[in-house]
């Protein structure tokens, strides 16, 4: 049908005009996050956001924040393809018995997005990182 084709080509043209950035290569993700230094800054902003959120901060009442910070940095480094070693537990084991629900997870994702924005990480890089974190939902929630 002519109209369908018309709409589709208009949509595709729109996409081409509006988007110039391109999908990131996974091994470059670490660089795009600013290396270890960038990841440390993102983590600190994330922890500040987290500490101000009454909805979820209670989960971290027993947490040693300095160790937690270090594990988060290592974890983000490893999943973004950096040359680091992660010394923490698996995502499943790390969150066992914490009774984290979807609202908690949504809130953490929101804080991470905000931390990435505050750090001026471009949208394509943010989305590439979210693509790696989102599937951890099943290991982290409801157990």
């Amino acid at each position: 049908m002519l109209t369908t084709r018309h709409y589709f080509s208009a949509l595709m043209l729109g996409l081409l005009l509006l988007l110039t950035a391109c999908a990131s290569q996974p091994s470059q993700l670490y660089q795009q996050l600013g290396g270890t230094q960038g990841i440390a800054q993102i983590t600190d902003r994330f922890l500040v956001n987290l500490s101000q959120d009454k909805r979820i901060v209670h989960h971290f009442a027993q947490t040693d924040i300095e160790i937690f910070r270090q594990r988060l940095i290592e974890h983000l480094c490893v999943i973004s393809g950096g040359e680091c070693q992660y010394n923490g537990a698996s995502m499943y084991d790390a969150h066992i018995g914490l009774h984290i629900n979807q609202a908690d997870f949504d809130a953490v994702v929101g804080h991470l997005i905000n931390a990435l924005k505050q750090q001026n990480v471009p949208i394509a890089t943010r989305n590439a990182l979210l693509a790696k974190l989102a599937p951890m939902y099943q290991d982290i929630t409801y157990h």
Partner: protein
Amino acid sequence: MLQKILILCLCVVAGIHHPVIADTSKVIATAGATTIEGAAGGGIVPWAVINGYASTEQWSATAMSTLVTVDDFTLQAVGASLSVDNRFEVSLTKQTFDLDTMGGKLGQDIIGIKYKLAGELLYTSLPQISVGLQYKRVDDFTIPNAVGARNDWGLDAYLAASKVYFDAIAGRNLVTNLTLRATKANQTGLLGFGTTTNNDYHLQTEVSVALLLTDNIALGYEYKQKPNQLSFAKEDDWQDIFMAWFINKHLSLVGAYANLGSIAGFERQKGWYLSIEGTL
């Protein structure tokens, strides 16, 4: 009357300084927009997403007002919805359809419910899957009756699957949606349900795709298949291209260019769609 209440709701909900703000957690834009039938979705296709920003153990309310103006007709929809737990949604919508060229008007009320069966839009490889029901009743059966409709009310049932692909196209996130609907409605119910000779359900396919150009601006396309059963005039499938702007978690705007095809003998009905939504 219903319209006045709904407009009042919209004002209250859109008033960001209202004292009772629901404490909600869902990520921006994941509530979708609201269709002209009241369900969370695009403009004309319901998605599997649940309206509002309530995650588990939270609630959310929305109110919307939508105007669609095509060559010979104007459709207005006002509605409100309530959702709990990012699981269940109930919506109430009033549609008025002005026959600008012919004179007169049609209208219907729609009560919708939606229940999330499985999957999580952002987090599972399985798409989010929801089932929905829409009870529709026309305001005045005179015109639908005259053109051969059988009933002044009908029940649509649909199954919707929605999924977000992160970093899908040029680093942007892509929302995809497929909806299967069983319906007897003529022109979504504005011209009644079934025909004098046939009262069967028709299985229709609806699709939408949207690309999140930024965190809060989506560009999308929708296609809605519709039955073509009244003999007095041809009925076409609907489609539109839309741009949604989720200004914040309390206010969103959707603009679209819609092609509604042939309606009641008037060919090539194209025009603009504008929707404003408030979320609590």
